[in-house]
């Protein structure tokens, strides 16, 4: 080393200090920053002298001490989640109270491989912070977001706790199933599949599990929804359905804290009933339709008898702490959630431990995270595609209300009308699923220079699921089960790994031009396998009075073992290079460009790499000189972006010729290879306007987008003779277009000392249209949307075809009834309605009055149709002739009991609804006694009511009725009913 240089630097530093000192007649300001709502301290708020870079953060008690030049007369105080404030420096200690704000400009937004301040983001990103999440009974993170983000449409596939959801960002972007967005947790992209084995029970296939089940909702700090291509293109070939980025909480650097929370909930009936006949009406019906011998004299409401009223419990414990050099957080969540129907439960245990520590003068940061989640489910006989033998929901709906479920001697009563006894079904099935998941990551970042940082992320996400399914043989009337019993043991394993290297270079090129360059490499790999073995013919449990061991505990007793099945999915590997450049000139002009090259093992040999560029620009009008004088706006900005994202959700192995083994001595080709197979490409444009008025009184955004999906991955008809009826191609000309407008608006209506009132909401319009959907010059017409049940086997009710929205209903028109009360149906199906909501909206409001907080969240969808398959084939009029219950609508119609069943436009109903998702009131006791801090108690109701004309259980429904791997949308068939729940809870910290 050169001593001279050191010396000169030393002298320079000394001189500069002297100069500053010489210039400054300083003053010291002290104060305390508190929450306007309850006066609690705001920790780590930023306090900066206006016009300087001198600042401090508030301590654990909210206090600060800052020395500023005497010329500074104003402090700028800001904190995440609060409206920033300018405070004049007066003589004494400053008391600053900040108002909680939904305006999120200063919040940090996770933008993929990095973060940015909300105001620096050029794309359409919606960020939802923990404090704004939905409350009440939450089992999976996606429920936190329902009706919180414009353009995000989340539909549960089932009301069963932990069931999968259909998540659409800005419309329906795919003609295939499995088109959910990419989930990224703390930088780790998830596979999207679940290791929960799906086992058939003889009642049909059960709905899938939610891949986010292993996450503790209380661990989540924020969820960012990357909606446009400018934000999602950095995720390349997996970004086309949008990206949902989940960031978990990390410890705080201001001391140790223990947080505890618990809640108890109970089901209080159904959100909405499905109207079948009560006993008196049923008796009238028997007379009306001339049915004899079916009045058993009782008055039974099977749905009530089967309702689960057990208490659900939820316990949370989190310990966090740290100092300037590191922080950690450990948490535990134990919850048991009871489904609407007896016997249906989800137990969930999640432990999470994470931390990050700084070394080498804080140049090196090492972090780690470990999440272990266990879910244990009790599954009831419930399925997407129950046939004529039905399942528990059909047995409940069809139950003759004049017949008891159990006779005086405690024996189940079995009707002879083709419907099962739902209580017996519960007793006869024992179906347990356990899934263990681990998400472990290790992160390192090193500041090579002040401007250049290297980051490494390695993560593994591994899940194992095991399922033991028993159907006991005592129950009569089930082919292959009655008198013999059946059982299956299934296992599944899913492991994905991620390695990400990034280099981040931040530089202020001039005082006015900032540059942020990011480059990186990512390797991602995923493996999935499952196996199962099953048998029938057992010696036990063939009599309800002699139930002993589950069959799955003694499988060797089976008379007949089916050949075990094993499946190992092709390994999926992605190898990607990406880069992002962000420019910010003068806080007025922002420009972001991203580029990703994705290589995928799924792609055909001729197309191994895909390239995804995007560019976004923003003009912060508010910072222009001509706006300086404006008194209205505190933020006004225009955004525009363009980008290309991809979708590679087709079955791995589709590009190669595959030969599969069948049973012994049997092997054959199973697919038509397509070496040209590649990704589906979505090109999108987004224009946005953001604004907020002074002090954040009113804020909002308007976004217009146009998203065009081309190279559509399509199951083309194989040219026979062929080993399969379809194969995957990229359709050359077809376009799937989603165009829409999103309006988000919020206002702080009242900001009095003891009373504040915020309202915010959104409305989003989307138009979905498939064009140029042709092959060999002819319109492609794909029928999908299975209509199931007795009498409608093989009927498909939706079509994917040219110049129509995806999954347009395609049904025979209902023409009324003939003189004999038989329904008349047109001969040929016609386009009957759009199953994709064209309008979605959400509304939230929060009122703080003294120590009370009232929150109400709701939302809905409009402009779409739902097909009521339950009414078509389960509660149709023909049931009453055999003593099965029927729907009130059928009873009130002119139809007679001998009318043929048929799928038709008669059962296509408007899906428009408004749902009050959540209303809660909480009381903030504040600190209590010596140790208890932030004591809070709440009462909350979920799914309190729904306003809709739909006659089924819930218009927000999407039972998987796909056919041949084509998706369906908005069909109701024996859904797991949505419960109205009430919870009460308390939380505090130590």
């Amino acid at each position, binding site marked *: 080393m050169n001593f001279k240089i050191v010396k000169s630097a030393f002298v320079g530093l000394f001189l500069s200090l002297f100069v500053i000192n010489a210039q400054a007649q300083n003053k010291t300001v002290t104060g305390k920053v508190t929450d306007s709502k309850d006066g609690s301290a705001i920790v780590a708020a930023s306090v900066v002298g206006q016009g300087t870079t001198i600042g401090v953060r508030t301590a654990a008690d909210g206090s600060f001490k800052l020395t500023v030049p005497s010329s500074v007369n104003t402090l700028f105080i800001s904190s995440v989640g609060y409206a920033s404030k300018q405070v004049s420096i007066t003589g004494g200690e400053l008391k600053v109270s900040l108002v909680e704000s939904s305006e999120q400009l200063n919040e940090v937004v996770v933008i993929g491989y990095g973060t940015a301040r909300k105001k620096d983001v050029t794309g359409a990103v919606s960020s939802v912070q923990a404090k704004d999440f939905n409350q009440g009974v939450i089992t999976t993170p996606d429920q936190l977001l329902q009706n919180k983000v414009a353009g995000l449409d989340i539909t549960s596939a089932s009301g069963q706790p932990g069931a999968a959801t259909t998540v659409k960002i800005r419309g329906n972007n795919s003609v295939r199933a499995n088109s959910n967005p990419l989930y990224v947790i703390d930088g780790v992209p998830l596979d999207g599949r679940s290791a929960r084995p799906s086992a058939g029970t003889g009642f049909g296939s059960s709905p899938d599990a939610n891949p986010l089940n292993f996450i503790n909702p209380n661990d989540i700090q924020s969820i960012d929804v990357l909606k446009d291509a400018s934000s999602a293109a950095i995720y390349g070939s997996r970004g086309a359905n949008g990206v949902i980025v989940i960031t978990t909480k990390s410890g705080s650097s201001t001391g140790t804290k223990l947080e505890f929370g618990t809640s108890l909930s109970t089901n209080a009936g159904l959100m909405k009933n499905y109207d079948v006949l009560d006993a008196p009406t049923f008796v009238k019906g028997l007379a009306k339709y001339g049915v004899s011998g079916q009045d058993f004299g009782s008055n039974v409401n099977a749905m009530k008898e089967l309702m689960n009223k057990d208490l659900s419990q939820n316990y949370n414990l989190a310990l966090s702490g740290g100092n300037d050099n590191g922080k950690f957080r450990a948490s535990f969540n134990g919850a048991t959630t009871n489904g609407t129907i007896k016997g249906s439960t989800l137990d969930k245990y999640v432990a999470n431990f994470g931390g990050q520590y700084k070394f080498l003068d804080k140049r090196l940061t090492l972090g780690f995270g470990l999440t272990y989640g266990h879910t244990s489910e009790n599954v009831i006989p419930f399925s997407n595609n129950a046939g004529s033998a039905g399942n528990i929901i059909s047995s409940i709906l069809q139950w003759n209300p004049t017949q008891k479920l159990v006779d005086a001697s405690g024996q189940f009563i079995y009707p002879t009308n083709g419907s099962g006894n739902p209580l017996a079904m519960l007793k006869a099935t024992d179906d347990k699923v356990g899934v263990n998941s681990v998400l472990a990551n290790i992160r390192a970042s090193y500041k090579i220079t002040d401007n250049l940082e290297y980051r490494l992320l390695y993560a593994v996400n591994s899940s194992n699921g095991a399922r033991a399914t028993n159907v006991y043989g005592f129950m009569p009337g089930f082919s292959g089960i009655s008198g013999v019993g059946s059982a299956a043991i299934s296992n599944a394993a899913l492991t994905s790994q991620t390695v990400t290297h990034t280099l981040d270079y931040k530089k202020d090129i001039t005082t006015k031009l900032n540059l942020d360059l990011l480059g990186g490499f990512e*390797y991602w790999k995923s493996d999935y396998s499952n196996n199962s073995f099953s048998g029938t013919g057992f010696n036990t449990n063939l009599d309800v009075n002699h139930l002993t061991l589950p069959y799955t505990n003694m499988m060797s007793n089976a008379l007949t073992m089916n050949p075990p099945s094993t499946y190992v999915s092709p390994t999926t590997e992605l190898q990607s290079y990406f880069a992002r450049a962000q420019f910010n000139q003068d806080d007025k002009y922002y420009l972001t460009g991203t580029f990703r090259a994705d290589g995928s093992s799924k792609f055909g040999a001729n197309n191994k790499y895909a390239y995804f560029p995007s560019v976004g620009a923003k003009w912060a009008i508010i910072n222009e000189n001509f706006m300086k004088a404006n008194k209205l706006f505190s933020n006004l900005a225009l955004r525009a972006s363009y980008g290309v994202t991809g979708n590679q959700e087709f079955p791995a192995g589709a590009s190669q010729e595959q030969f599969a083994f069948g049973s012994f001595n049997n092997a054959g080709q199973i697919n038509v290879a397509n070496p040209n197979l590649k990704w589906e490409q979505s090109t999108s444009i987004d224009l946005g306007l953001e604004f907020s008025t002074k002090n954040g009184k009113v804020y909002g955004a308007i976004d217009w987008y146009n998203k065009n999906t081309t190279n559509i991955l399509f199951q083309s008809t194989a040219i026979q003779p062929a080993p399969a009826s379809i194969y995957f191609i990229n359709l050359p000309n077809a376009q799937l277009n989603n165009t829409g407008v999103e309006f988000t608006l919020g206002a702080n209506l009242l900001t009095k000392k003891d009373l504040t009132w915020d309202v915010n909401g959104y409305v989003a319009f989307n138009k979905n249209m498939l064009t140029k959907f042709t092959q060999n010059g002819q319109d492609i017409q794909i029928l999908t949307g299975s209509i199931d049940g007795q009498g409608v086997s093989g009927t498909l009710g939706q079509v994917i075809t040219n110049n129509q929205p995806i999954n347009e209903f395609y049904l025979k028109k209902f023409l009324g009834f003939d003189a004999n009360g038989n329904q008349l149906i047109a001969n040929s199906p016609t386009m009957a309605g759009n199953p994709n909501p064209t309008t979605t909206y959400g509304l939230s409001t929060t009122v703080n009055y003294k120590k009370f907080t009232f929150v109400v969240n709701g939302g809905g969808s409009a402009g779409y149709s739902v097909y009521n398959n339950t009414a078509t084939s389960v509660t149709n009029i023909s049931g009453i002739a055999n003593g099965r219950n029927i729907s009130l609508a059928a009873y009130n119609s002119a139809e007679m009991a001998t009318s043929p069943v048929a799928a038709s436009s008669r059962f296509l109903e408007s899906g428009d609804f408004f749902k009050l998702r959540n209303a809660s009131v909480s009381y903030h006791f504040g600190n209590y006694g010596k140790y208890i801090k932030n004591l809070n108690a709440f009462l909350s109701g979920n799914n309190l009511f729904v306003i809709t004309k739909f006659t089924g259980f819930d218009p927000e429904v999407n039972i998987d009725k796909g056919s041949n791997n084509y998706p369906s949308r908005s069909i109701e068939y024996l859904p797991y009913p949505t419960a109205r729940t009430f919870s009460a809870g308390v939380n505090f910290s130590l």
Partner: protein
Amino acid sequence: MIKSFKLKVFGLVLVTAVGCTKLDEHLNSTLTNSQTANALGSAGVGLLLQAAYTDIGGPFTAQDNIFSLQENSSDESLVPTRGGDWDDNGVWRVVHAHTWDANHGQVLNVYNALNKINFDATNVLAFSPSAQQAAEARFIRALSLYQLLDLYGQFPVRNPGDNLLNAPQVYAGAAGANFIISELTAIIPSLPTTSTPDKANQTSANVLLMKCYLNRGAWVNKAAPTFADVDMQQVISIGNSIIAAGKYSLATEYFSNFDVNNGASKENIFTFVNTTGVGANNSGINGTWAKTLHYNSYTPLNPNAGWNGFSTISDFYNSFGATTAMVGVTQFKAGNISGKYADTSVDTRIGGRFSWLSTPQSGIKPGFLIGQQYNETGAAEIDRKGAPLAFDPTIASDMKETGANLEVTGIRVVKYTPDFSNGAASYGGPSGNDLVIFRYADVLLMVAEAKMRAGSPDVAGALTLINQLRTARKAATVTSMPLVNTNNPEDPTTLLAERGREFYWESQRRTDLIRFGVFLKPWQYKPTDDPKYLLFPIPSQALAANPNLTQNPGY
């Protein structure tokens, strides 16, 4: 110094990470083409051949596949809509009423299933099979091409190893017939003379060849079939050689050809083997009785013992009547279902009490089920409303049952005796009855028919064979039997009716009705017809995919 070291380390990390995979896809549970050839060795081609055999089971058994197109389109079978059941968007009614179109799901599924057999059989040829393996594969392919030509009037054929993205050649009509005949002629010498009935041998190939010669005239001109004498002589000579070889004979009990032990039948020439309780490679033969039996037909599974669908028409049932000397038997007439059947000297193929002992566990008898049904204890069964479970032959004219008796209309047909060797599990699950594809009885009746259709008809020779069969079935011998009554397809005195009595519900009826020139005649629940229905349409999807296919006239 330190800095450059850091950079090196950093560079190393980056370089090791980058370029670590070539992104070759590992399939894990399947093999690529080249792996297949290597991994399976010389035995591998046998596995591929077995896959082709396995393909046969499903489409030849399922109620909504070949059976539906060949039987529901005929006067032997239909599926009435029963109030809340079996509407299924009208798919069953349009097949019986002859109003189907090119988008009919069954038309597509049959086309795809047959071509899957076609493909898997052809694929064997790409993996260096032995002469016999190649011959077996080509036999299986010929079996699928026979059905394709018969149903659709044309079929595609690929060369082994073809690029599957290219459209294959298509054979139609006479060219199609010639192709199948030349294939069979070429392979017969390479086939074994004997084998288990589930594997191709010279006899099974010869039976298929006979069917090609017999039907060639109908394939060339379905509206007005003509029969070349050379074809008829081929049928006669091949048939005679099978008869003369004496390896096959008629069973003493007709329904033993279809019961759970039918693997031992001397009459069955080619079958698909099913094993009780074994799901793998099982064709789902239990569907053959489930599709017709009532929900309550078998007490332990009540109320879901059957699917209560498929029935036959009373006119077809009556074709067992007139000339068969059913002593003391009251022929069924609408409204009279209480006729008593004698226990002897009745055409045993009608079933009923003759086969009582076949299913002592259930009371279900093979054959035609009419009137009150009884369980194994002799107790009268009841339907789901508690009314007597008595099958009523009268079906609603539009095939939409709306009456109070809608559950019990239609005569039911149980060809395969329900398998009770494993209790309820085999009744409703994997059952052991082998699916019969070719029977010796067909050899006799084809030769008889060819003798009657030959340039110089040999009626006496034909009657000898017909009476040989009738005697075995305990039906009275006949002294004359015309081919067909073109005014009445169900006229009991004809050879067409004899074939109906022998092969009902064996997926032969449509082919026979066309060959005998009466497929377009009206029969119960099919009032009028259009000549285009002599062929099924090429499914719209298949037509769009392969430009070499030509849509059949009228569609």
